[in-house]
């Protein structure tokens, strides 16, 4: 299990528990459920690069305690 920090820099900061094998799409679903919004409206970035839904967090080198940028589209 890893815990990822997601910050939208607009006043929300979310800690999401997940697995490294989870895809970004799954992660978005969990995140959207925590935020109370649609997963399709979420865009995640790590170091300026947009994360694609079909790729796993592990492939993006998202580890425990990694900060992700959250954008709303």
């Amino acid at each position, binding site marked *: 299990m890893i815990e990822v920090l997601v910050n939208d820099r607009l*006043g*929300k*900061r979310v800690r999401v*528990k997940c697995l490294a094998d989870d895809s970004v799409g*799954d992660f978005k679903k*969990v995140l959207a*459920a925590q*935020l109370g919004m649609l997963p399709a409206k979420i865009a995640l970035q790590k170091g300026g690069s947009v994360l694609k839904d079909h790729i796993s967090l592990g492939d993006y080198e998202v580890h425990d305690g990694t900060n992700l940028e959250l954008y709303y589209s």
Partner: protein
Amino acid sequence: MVEEIALSLDETNKLRVQLGLKPIVAEKATPQQQQVEKPESKTIPAETVSSSFIDSSKISSFRQRLQKLSQRNINSTGDEAEDDEGWLKKVGSQKEVTPRLHVNMTYDDDDDDDDGDDMPQLRMAHNISDLATGKDIILTLKDNNGRDNDKSDEEDVLQDENLIHFKETDKNIRLKTMNKNRRQKKMKLNVGSNDLVGSDEDGGVIKENSMLTINSTIKLGNVQNEIENKTDNRGKIRVNFSDTSADDDSDIGDFKQTKIKRRKRRDGNNNITKAKTLDLPIKIDNVELIDEDAGIDQDEAAEINIRRNQRSHSPNSDETFDLASKIRQEALENKKREMDIAKLHNTAHMSGLIVDETSSFLSNLDSQLLDKHNEYSAVDDDIFPSNNDQAVAPSTEETHASKDPEHVTPETTISTADEPRGSDFSGGLASTLNFLRERNVLPTKSEIPARSTDSSREELLKLKRKIELREIKEGSSKASTDNTSKRSSVHDTQSELLRNYNPDINLVYRDDQGRELTTKEAYKKLSQRFHGTKSNKKKQAKMDRRVEQRSRKQGSELRRDII
């Protein structure tokens, strides 16, 4: 203020199950995770935390590890000065490893408690001094695949693979350098293969020193000295550099110097010939140049030449009789051919000269034309046959190059003088042409225009013939008018079929509403229908407008025309 949202593991698991994801299995918390989750666990009571995260056994294991690590650090830094100066001194220098070798081998047997004397002894393939490098060494049993069958009693031998590898490379390099030296300096190395094998064996020989008793410590300080004493004479390759030439043949090593053989020249009789050497005299004498022809006049020289030629061609006396008979025969033949010659002459004038390269034709020409020339020369004389006989005889004699010097008559000499050159057709076409020119057989320039007029006449005749042929054809065409009636019936049927045929077709394209379209527009519609595409509404509206305008214009024009 930053709003931080966090869900517990159970809640996230529920959520994940609802979303159709696999739940997160709770792991045993690592110290890092403990640290991470500390702020979160503020709300949770302390008792639960202690029960869930702190495991006494784990803690004890961690403490043990930490102790070990700290001991290691102390050991490693214990001998060294921790000051900067000591550290700096240490940077450049290598570590001096104390020559101590501990060989700890454990066996599963129950004899562990016995003394070292009873322990099994193993032989080693290397000197202990070689092994003392201050590093961990892995010793493996030597592979005795081939030897097991021969010597079943052979003991197990321990060897270090790395050391063996190093030794092999060392040996290879040494051999390479030896070989290089041999090539460059072309010197013979008196090192036989036996010596090399011996040297290998020296390395591989098992020594008394290299006996290992299991579970025993070896102090290398003493052992090394002993090894040095004993191995003074070992491990050296016996290399003999003998200066005496007598030993060279007997003691030549494996590296023989290549000898390049020189090729030997051979005659037809397979005799080897040595390279020719010119024996030049020490002094070269002056050679006096004598002009042998200086005293002789040109006329005399010419006579001499003629005589020489005559001598060279002088036949026997029997041949002369044969020649005479031949001459007579030829004369008779010539008489018979006279008529033919006359005809030939006429034809030559009429239709140009026919020059053939065949030998028979040339021979005919030779004799006949010569005769003719003689005829011309003797026009004044009325007696033709006698003259002919006289003329033929010298000519034939001339052809045979007056082989008999005694036969040479004054007449022949005269004839040779008259005739500029002998009739020799061996030179080919050029010689024949020359000959003919001399005999005035070829037409002169004055005759050529006359011929050209003849050719013009021929052309005129050809034209006339053509005209006649045409006239004949026209006559025949008139006769064929009857056939045309049949053809006309066919033509009528064709015309009936092609009644509606109009070569000036004007294609008009119309759309669904019956409006006229240009070819471009029509093509666009057609292609759109084929591909199942449509232009957008704007474009369609634009096109409709354009078509309507055009149709209006056309309508107004028509009205004007009607009015």
